[in-house]
């Protein structure tokens, strides 16, 4: 009798799990279109609308539209990654989760597989937006592209873990939506994506400094536009720290989750 488990390495298992997530992603093409639509809306309507109306005190040589561009990319990562976690609830409802749970794969592996799936969809999303960036006059250097990819991967891993953690505790989609409006939207709003953070009252500054997205947005701004308030390395280290801690929390919650 063949012992299948020992013949399949952890990488093959991960690949299988990732492939399933990727295939689901491809099938839900309408979701891809819908989730690209919102960032474009922000970029071209608010970007131009505010851009022509408001004058930014800082970075006044760069228009408002370009100013928010890095933040908009991060916004799409934030939303797609966190919503990725909600699919866990669907999976649970339709018992797919149960069948995966009883397969000879560790919970940690399943978690990583899902996280990789989330990261892939974010990457594709960001790639589309970056291409659109060219249309509004953004240029990239080869190193810049690599750095951007790094930011995207780290941020999406962080937020996918967060989404999966939330998804493992929520029983219903409504509850998930609740969390989204209480957590995700503030996360985005307070990340400095839409406006420079220096003019905020002190109590809000506290919140922005614990928001992982703030650092990702700043890093993105440094790479893409060359205006960032903190050095790139500093931002990346903070995001890495968040990635590791949220990844751990996410894996832990996922592991403790009831499959029923």
């Amino acid at each position: 009798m063949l012992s299948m488990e020992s013949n399949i390495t952890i990488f093959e298992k991960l690949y299988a799990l990732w492939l399933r997530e990727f295939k689901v992603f491809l099938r839900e093409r309408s979701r891809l279109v819908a989730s690209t639509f919102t960032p474009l809306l922000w970029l071209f309507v608010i970007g131009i609308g505010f851009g022509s109306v408001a004058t930014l005190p800082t970075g006044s040589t760069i228009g408002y539209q370009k100013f928010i561009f890095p933040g908009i990319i991060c916004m799409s990562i934030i939303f797609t990654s966190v919503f990725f976690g909600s699919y866990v609830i669907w999976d649970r409802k339709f018992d797919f989760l149960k069948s995966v749970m009883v397969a000879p794969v560790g919970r940690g592996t399943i978690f990583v597989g899902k996280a990789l799936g989330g990261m892939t969809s974010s990457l594709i999303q960001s790639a589309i937006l970056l291409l659109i960036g060219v249309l509004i006059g953004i240029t990239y250097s080869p190193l810049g592209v690599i750095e951007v990819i790094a930011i995207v991967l780290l941020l999406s891993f962080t937020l996918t873990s967060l989404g999966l953690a939330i998804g493992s505790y929520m029983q219903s989609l409504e509850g998930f939506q609740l969390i989204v409006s209480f957590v995700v939207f503030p996360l985005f709003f307070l990340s400095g994506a839409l406006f420079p953070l220096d003019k905020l009252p002190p109590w809000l500054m506290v919140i922005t400094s614990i928001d992982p997205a703030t650092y990702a947005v700043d890093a993105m701004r440094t790479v893409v536009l060359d205006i960032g308030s903190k050095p790139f390395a500093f931002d990346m280290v903070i995001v890495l720290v968040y990635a590791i801690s949220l990844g751990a929390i996410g894996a832990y919650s996922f592991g403790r989750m009831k499959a029923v």
Partner: protein
Amino acid sequence: MNIIQFLYNAITIAEMEARKIRHDTTELWTRLVQPALWLLIFGETFNAMRAMSTGSFSYIQFITPGILAQSVLFIAIFYGITVVWERDVGIITKLLSTPASHVSIVLGKSLAASIRGIFQAMMIFVLALILEVHIRLDPIDIAGVFAVTILFAMCFSSLSMLLASFMKTRDRMMGIGQALTMPLFFASNAIYPISAMPVWLQYISKCNPLSYVVDAMRSMLLSGSYENLPLDILILIASTVVFVSLASVTIKRLLE
């Protein structure tokens, strides 16, 4: 059909919603988070930056009616999703099997949405007061704001129900909801004045019903000049009548 009876049926359906709210107010509060964030953070920040010229009012004054209208819009459009959910659990079937006419049912549901809308408007009003935004406190103006809110919510919730009869599933309605609210919000004069927009955006905003509502709100909350008000309200009433009538005809499609 007796007209009093027709109205009574519509009010009964709104009563359903009122009773549900009495049992569970959670959703009312959670839907406040987003508009509150917009007002608090966006409003205050840009206000402090003095980045925009908004006439004789500060930026946060300018944006308050816009945020108020946007939050009511959000509630109204997402009411279509509630109706789709009610179809899923069979409540719509039950309602349509009563002697109440389809028109009274749609009208009643739009009144139900406006109950939620009123709550939003009230809370944002209070929030604005807390943030010390100077808004007019004349009782007639306040009554006007609530009247426009009710009408506005009725208009867009019946539009939402009309769309729901064609979209039919919750997923699709959520997609439509997002696809509608964001553009309507951004391409209006809610957060920036029309006069400062590029021409193409001005044109879109002028065709956007939300702009007229925001305009009406602004005149009641800020300026006190009512010159555009009659036109705004007329357009709103006309749209409401159109949407309610159309939705009454198509509501049966929801059951198929």
